[in-house]
């Protein structure tokens, strides 16, 4: 039986997913609630975040009847209140905070670091919003947690008249240990750009970035110590996101971390595997496929009993060749999951 790990009781999470914005004229989304639920599933997973369920606080637009303008800024921001309140009371909250936010969002016109999620009751002339990055930065500045992981799957387009309002917390002036707080901030889009959602092969609509991010959490290669670090996730995501985009054009995500004090998301002995469908064309029967890794080391010889076969490969670069023919191809996994050689 696999060893059952104790939950990470000092890890906490805030999860926000908003699909509907009936007043502001923005189209309804189908992905954010799914994204929030998928991320919560990873958080609960003993092989993933391994958080006890009571440490995951979430607000989803699907928690209220359709058309009820839920959540408003206060309803979403209340998730942060406890941690800010506890700081004033002198309580150390925990080791790590995850903040996940998905929905329509925007970037501040004058401060490139600020990104907010529109609240469900946003209107054109009253763009109510949740100042997510402001809260996260407050928590970092005040070292409420040792580590902060922020994931925002939302647009960061700039609407010049819309500024992100500072929440009504008190800012402490005294020096705190913010520099020691490890952080990993991942945005689906860089400032000024849009994030995208699409329907995936399983029939569900998801944010492309969230799908790619959760996949990276599950399959990204660990370092030599078996740690899946923020840098490993970043490297993996920058190379895998295109494979999740389908026909949609996505621009590079924006991921910030301090590699000198990286966060360990999970540990595993080796990377997860991804199915790669290989078609042989032409196929005369009985060809042998030779697979070499990125150092030209032969890692597999497979006799093809049909014109199509599936190889389970870890993320990386490979050279695939048909033995005794000149046919060969360089492939990137997961970017090339359907190849013909």
């Amino acid at each position, binding site marked *: 039986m696999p060893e059952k790990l104790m939950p990470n009781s000092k890890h906490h999470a805030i999860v926000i997913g908003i699909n509907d914005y009936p007043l502001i004229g923005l189209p309804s989304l189908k992905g954010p609630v799914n994204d929030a639920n998928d991320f919560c599933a990873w958080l609960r997973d003993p092989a993933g975040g391994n958080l006890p369920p009571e440490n995951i606080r979430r607000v989803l637009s699907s928690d209220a009847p359709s058309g009820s303008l839920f959540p408003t800024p206060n309803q979403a921001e209340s998730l942060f209140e406890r941690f800010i309140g506890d700081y004033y009371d002198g309580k150390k909250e925990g080791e790590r905070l995850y903040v996940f936010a998905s929905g329509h969002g925007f970037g501040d*016109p004058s401060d*490139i670091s600020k990104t907010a999620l529109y609240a469900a009751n946003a209107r054109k002339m009253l763009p109510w919003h949740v100042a997510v990055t402001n809260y996260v930065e407050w928590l970092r500045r005040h070292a409420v947690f040792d580590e902060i992981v922020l994931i925002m799957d939302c647009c960061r387009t700039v609407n010049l008249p819309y500024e992100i309002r500072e929440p009504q917390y008190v800012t402490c002036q005294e020096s705190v240990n913010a520099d020691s707080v490890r952080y990993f901030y991942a945005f689906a889009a860089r400032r000024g750009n849009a994030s995208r959602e699409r329907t995936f092969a399983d029939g569900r609509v998801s944010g492309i970035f969230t799908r790619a991010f959760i996949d990276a959490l599950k399959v990204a290669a660990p370092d030599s110590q078996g740690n899946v670090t923020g840098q490993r996730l970043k*490297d993996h995501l920058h190379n895998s996101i295109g494979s999740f985009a389908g026909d949609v054009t996505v621009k590079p995500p924006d991921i910030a971390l301090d590699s000198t004090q990286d966060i360990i998301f999970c540990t595993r002995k080796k990377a997860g595997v991804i199915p790669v469908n290989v078609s042989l064309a032409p196929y005369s029967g009985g060809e042998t496929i030779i697979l070499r890794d990125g150092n030209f080391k032969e890692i597999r010889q497979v006799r093809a009993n049909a014109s199509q076969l599936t190889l389970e490969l870890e993320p990386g*670069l490979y050279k695939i060749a048909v033995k005794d023919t000149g046919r060969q191809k360089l492939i990137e996994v997961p970017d090339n999951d359907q190849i013909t050689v």
Partner: protein
Amino acid sequence: MTKSRSKRQIALTVRAADCLAEVFLVNSRFERIAAGVGSVDAAVTPGLYKARFRVGQVQTDSLIEVGADAEHMVFEGPPVQFDTPVPLPQTMTWRQEHEQAARKESHTIHCRLGSGSQLFLFFRGLAEAASRPWLGVSVHDLDGTLLAGPEQGICDERSAFFALNLEVDPGCYSLRVEEEPGEVYEIFVSTLSGWQTQVFALAEQSWLPGVGAFRAALPVASVLTAAIGTGFDPSVVSVRQSELLRLGLLHGRNILAKAGLDSVLAEQPLNPMTAVFAAHVLLRQEDAALTAELVKHVDRCVVAAMPDLVAALPVSGGLPVFVLPPMLRSSWQRIMEAAGKEKAAISPGSVVEQLKDGVLNTPLWLLRRR
């Protein structure tokens, strides 16, 4: 105990098609092993590598096989198909009819309002809804007097472009777009003696929230300069260079290294807008050495006529006095900071002084709501 002999190292050079494109090299585990602009050099063991070429927010990847039988391998990357308002070949937004029209109309004076410099506008649409990119467009002097509108230019709905070439006195002009009734925004455009200032914009759904109309997108417009008589010629090196620098500035990328600056400076006389963009990219990079190199090559008369260069480059002599507004938001910020520290003066009663209200925070151009 002796160390085992390490694997053979091959000198790998990866070159981008554009000297101002970013280049990243990763190994087969997606670990970045080299990064640079224009090209990168790395000593690598035989194996598979991935090169990524990036312009602004667009990137193209290539897989590279480095064999054991070469001492040195050079890989030439493909051009990155970026998007731009300028009808440049080898870009995502190139349309042949737009390139031809821009070439032709930039040689035609549509309206004479002065002499010595030209202001050429070329706005275009790529979608059916954007087939009238001239809607809401007007050119004014700094007093607000209307100088020209769509009726003075070429409005071609079938090919979705608007062209207007004005002969004007060297100076600064206000280019306005009415996004919706009563919502007018302006950028400022400098013209120089002997030069044609070219403004390119794509008609896009208004950047104002809730406004569905398609209008020329001023916040991400392109501004180029060409010597009078040459018109728009996308084969000129400085056209692509200026555009790459503009995209670097727009997206906050550090894209100007020594080799890139050398290629920029190879063209003489230095193109004024290329100099403006280069100066501001270097300002962002806080690279004093390359800035000093740039200063040596910029014509002093051009600097004096362009507030964007005065704001960005170290000036010798007296306190700079700003009478005319700059084009770039970063210049505006520099001017305001310098004025606050009494290191620059703003001429009383000038447009610059009046501008303090209504300036919007944009990543590129100084944009004002009228």
